[in-house]
């Protein structure tokens, strides 16, 4: 009988605190706990980072992993530049200067934050950072990797800390696009920072369309979809038009639609395209531009006001 009463009490208290938590009434308590715990967590994370290598495999492999990480960083930087260039080209081609949106991000104000914790539940993909409302961080703000690719948004902001919902979290959905003009580097081609594909083999025979006398083809419209987080697959680019011609290697960037993300932020690279007969939309698996499971430092874009924040009173 006592156990039943205890269970009832715990359920009641649990639900009350759950409701209070949903109303942000317990945020100061969480902030205080994180204030106490963050230095310890930070120390543990620093001490434990070599565990990642050990866990990955034998000693030599750790160096390979670090090299790989460095190369990925460089690759990510180059891809960011490519994506940025593509975005600018596209904006110019589409005469968006008339709409005055091509220069939206020259004055990005970024604040650097350290990752102090990761959500261990497995049901979510979240990290905690050591900046909060006192540093100008607010819920909904966009968070980038140190190389400038999109990693998520602020989902909970306390006084001195904040939780970031990563783009591979099941709750995450980002309006995205693939710029088809240079989105097909696959099949052995190498993507250069100029957005062109270097063919490793002989120069292909010129086609009539490619002759110097032919007028340049109009730029194809970007293929738009929604990049959703997925527990199993990481990031899935969904709702793609079935006739869209994208393939592995295509760069996925934010489209800016909806106003919650600035346009042109690199999300990742298409690794696989899935199209089922009769399916109304195509899907593509996307590999994030940065490793989302080993983030140490992130950048919060504090001057971009997402539409959902601007709409709030």
């Amino acid at each position, binding site marked *: 009988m006592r*156990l039943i009463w*205890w*269970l009832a009490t*715990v*359920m009641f*208290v*649990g*639900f*009350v*605190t*759950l*409701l*209070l*938590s*949903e109303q942000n009434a*317990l945020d100061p*308590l*969480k902030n205080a*706990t*994180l204030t106490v*715990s963050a230095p*310890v*967590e*930070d120390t*543990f*994370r620093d*001490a*434990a*980072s070599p*565990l*990642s290598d050990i*866990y990955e495999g034998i000693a030599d492999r750790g160096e390979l992993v670090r090299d790989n990480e460095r190369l990925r960083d460089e690759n990510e930087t180059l891809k960011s530049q490519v994506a940025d260039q593509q975005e600018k080209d596209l904006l110019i081609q589409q005469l968006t200067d008339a709409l005055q949106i091509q220069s939206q991000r020259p004055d990005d104000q970024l604040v650097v934050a350290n990752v*102090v*914790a*990761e*959500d*261990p*539940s*497995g*049901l*979510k993909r*979240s990290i*905690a950072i050591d900046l909060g409302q006192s540093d100008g961080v607010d819920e909904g703000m966009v968070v980038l990797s140190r190389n400038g690719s999109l990693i998520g948004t602020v*989902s*909970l902001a306390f006084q001195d800390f904040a*939780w970031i919902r990563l783009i591979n979290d*099941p*709750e995450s959905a980002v309006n995205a696009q693939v710029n088809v003009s240079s989105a097909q580097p696959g099949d052995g081609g190498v993507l250069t920072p100029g957005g062109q594909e270097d063919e490793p083999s002989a120069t292909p025979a010129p086609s009539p369309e490619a002759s110097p006398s032919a007028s340049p083809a109009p730029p194809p419209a970007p293929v738009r979809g929604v990049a959703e987080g*997925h*527990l*199993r697959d990481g990031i899935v680019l969904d709702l793609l038009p079935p006739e869209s011609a994208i393939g592995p290697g295509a760069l996925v960037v934010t489209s800016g639609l909806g106003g919650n993300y600035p346009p042109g932020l690199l999300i990742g690279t298409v690794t696989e395209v899935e199209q089922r007969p009769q399916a109304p939309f195509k899907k593509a698996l996307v590999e994030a531009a940065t490793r989302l*499971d*080993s983030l140490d430092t992130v950048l919060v874009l504090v001057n971009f006001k997402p539409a959902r924040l601007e709409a709030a009173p």
Partner: protein
Amino acid sequence: VRYAVAAVIAWFLAVLDVSVFPYIHPLGVSPDLVLIFAVSWAVVRGQDEALVVVPLCGLIQDLLTSDPVGLSIIGLAPAVPIALAVRMRAIETDFLPTIAAVMGTSACYGVISMALLGFTGQDVAVFNSLLRVVFPALIINALFTPLIYLPMHWTAPRQTAWLQSSARLPSSL
């Protein structure tokens, strides 16, 4: 004092959960040390202490993760009745019952977490979560149980007085 000690240990394990164990994720999940600790305490030290320690562990877990406060308080509550149930055993040991209780509580915790996250408006892919998180967590938490159970067992006062009259097989665990 014992509850203060339990709170400090639970806090320490929760800190390990969010800082160190994201680097170690066999089968794609990290062990939930706070859950293991709460269940081990409930089995090894008995129901009276578990009634305080288990919700305390849930509260500490909630304060250190992105979960809303209350989720783990409710999610860990089944640990107490499960720990009580697994005392009905044929061998005089807490080890196997603790393993069983950890697995049972992990399953309950996973399902309750999904339900409560859904209740708070978050999108939960039920099948994927069961397959990729809840089921692997049963195994991983069971595998990590000795790390917490054994030190607790060695330092705990024996709770076996009421077992002496029963015809159970002895065990060093």
